[in-house]
């Protein structure tokens, strides 16, 4: 009995080993096939050091990059996601593998800002241009070609501009903030406040974090509304909190969009749907779809043209149910 159990264990072990080898073989085979295809034609090899599954925005963003760097467009994209959204080591490994493989260009969305100098210097020695997507790194800007990203300050400013137009006489407003301490929160506050500063009649009732979630957004706004029934405008720093705020406004017997207008940032599909249903009044998209900008930057870098050090991705804004419906139909949600 004991003997056969042990045999079973050995068989299992060998089986697992064979399976692992088989998988490794598959992976290796896939890479080889990619390489030979590359050598056969004139495709530009692009290594993409990515973050991987993190959430709706990241998925949309990385899909947009994959959709832009197709073989038809003349690229062979090698996608290397981190093993988890916080695992920088696997990103560093993928980066050095790309340098050793002598890819033509490296795209990098860093999980962490620090610790990239050595890797970037290696790429520079190998004369491989590096383009940062979305997230910046703490390194000298000589080490990379450009950073392509939407700008939180600019996106929040579009909310402020819309608010100024909608309330020419000013309004009592409340801000739902994200998780305290994040740079996103500070930048979105900065952009909005800068846009409405100097205008008369703007009365900030308060600001509180709702930790990016809908149920906390609802909880905050229902309490605020009890104390301040004259609230007119809510600036929610992400879509979820705005949707929660709309639920609180409805529960208080008020009509979102008429009694209280709500503006949000991000532009996810649920927010566009809520805008189409009239629950939200304004959605500013933090635009993840910048694949074509990245393609242009790669082509410019390879051709030796000058490229701006920062390329700000312009974001669309949606201010009516019709615009939201059109955006949903056009697949602009994520």
């Amino acid at each position: 009995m004991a003997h056969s159990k042990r045999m079973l264990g050995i068989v299992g072990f060998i089986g697992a080993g064979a399976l692992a080898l088989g998988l490794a073989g598959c992976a290796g085979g896939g890479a080889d096939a990619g390489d030979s295809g590359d050598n056969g034609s004139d495709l530009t090899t692009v290594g993409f050091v990515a973050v991987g599954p993190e959430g709706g925005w990241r998925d949309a963003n990385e899909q947009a990059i994959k959709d832009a760097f197709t073989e038809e467009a003349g690229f062979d994209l090698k996608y290397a996601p981190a093993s988890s959204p916080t695992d920088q080591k696997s990103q560093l490994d993928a980066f050095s593998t790309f340098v050793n493989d002598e890819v033509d260009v490296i795209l990098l969305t860093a999980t962490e800002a620090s610790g990239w100098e050595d890797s970037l210097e290696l790429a520079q020695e190998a004369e491989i241009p590096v383009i940062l997507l979305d997230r910046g790194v703490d390194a000298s800007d000589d080490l990379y070609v450009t950073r392509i990203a939407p700008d939180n300050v600019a996106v929040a400013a579009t909310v402020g501009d819309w608010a100024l137009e909608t309330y020419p006489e000013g309004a009592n407003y409340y801000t739902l903030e994200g998780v305290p301490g994040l740079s996103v929160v500070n930048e979105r506050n900065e952009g909005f406040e800068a846009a409405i500063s100097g205008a008369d009649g703007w009365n900030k009732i308060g600001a509180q974090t709702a930790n990016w979630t809908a149920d906390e957004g609802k909880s905050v706004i229902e309490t605020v509304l009890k104390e301040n029934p004259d609230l007119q405008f809510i600036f929610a720093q992400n879509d979820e909190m705005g949707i929660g705020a709309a639920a609180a406004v409805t529960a208080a017997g008020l009509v979102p969009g008429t009694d209280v207008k709500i503006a949000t940032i991000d532009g996810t599909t649920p927010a566009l749907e809520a805008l189409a249903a009239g629950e939200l009044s304004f959605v500013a998209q933090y635009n993840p779809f910048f694949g074509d900008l990245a393609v242009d930057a790669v082509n410019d870098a390879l051709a030796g043209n000058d490229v701006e050090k920062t390329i700000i991705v312009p974001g669309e804004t949606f201010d009516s149910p019709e615009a939201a419906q059109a955006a949903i139909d056009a697949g602009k949600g994520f």
Partner: protein
Amino acid sequence: MSRVKTALRTPWFWAIVGIAVLLLINTIKNPAYLALSVNPTTGLLTGNLLDILRVSAPIIMIALGMTFVIATEGIDLSVGSMMAVGGAVAMQTLSTLDDPTSVGAMLAAIGLALALAIVLGAVNGLLVAVVGLQPFISTLIMMLAARGIARVITDGQNTNATNEPFRQLANGQILGLPTSFVLAIAIVVTIALVMRRTALGLMIESIGINPKASRLAGIRPRPILFGVYILSAALAAVGGLFSVSEVMTVSVSGTGNLMELDAILAVVIGGTSLAGGKFSILGSTIGALLIATLNKTVLFLGIPAAATPAFKALVIIVLVLLQSERVRSFVFGRGKPSGTPTSPSTPAGTESTPVTKEVVA
């Protein structure tokens, strides 16, 4: 006289004092704080007190489950993630069903959410009772795994759905009280009856005191441990259902995030010993109400987001210190056998008020 003394020694007495003080502070800020009124548009009773009861429902659920786990000298760190699983299953079911606005769809969503939670709770039970892992480790693994499972269920999206009967769980009222609160109290009463009218509660406590001795006395710990972890997971899923029905959206990373800490705090404030061996269902419920009151007070006073955790921590530290025998005897004078019954409670009330007020200012 002795009754007052007993009350003073009951840990949840101080939780009630805490709730009263917080409500008092809010009423000082706005005298109309406690007022209830009928909203002419929705026809429902509204008021800050009702909001507190409503948001306390999920906390009551997870604190109730946590009470029994802690009584067995364990801990369940997975309740927050389990809320996300319950909410994710419900939202995903409602958003994919053909006839999503019916009561049947709601029952299907609730049933599936409970079923998955029971399976995951059984895994916790298996790891603790059969494999013999530390509860801290087993449920820590489940805390990470369950959030991953929630992500897989909704495909990483924050899924929303429409189902009026389900939405009424949090937004409806029964006799003027929030439906979720009424349901939560009904569940608490049912479970309290089962625990105290049968020997089950006693068995849980005996395992917490001394598992070996209770086994020698004929109590088999395994099925009971399985039971408490399954119960905790199922109650957490119910809490998750209450939580997502508020806004009909599940946020896979946000729903129930860090709520396990609220549950542990509610249980400890309620007087259940972390060393196991005794539990107080009433205490945990009052502890959960205190945490809900505290959360709402922070919002009502408009405390800056950055200072919120510090404010909450201060209130809880004051409470826990008041519960400590040593601190109490130090503050109120040691060994005063014939102290007038009312005097200890009066200074306590007046004393804790300035402490919290200071923080507010």
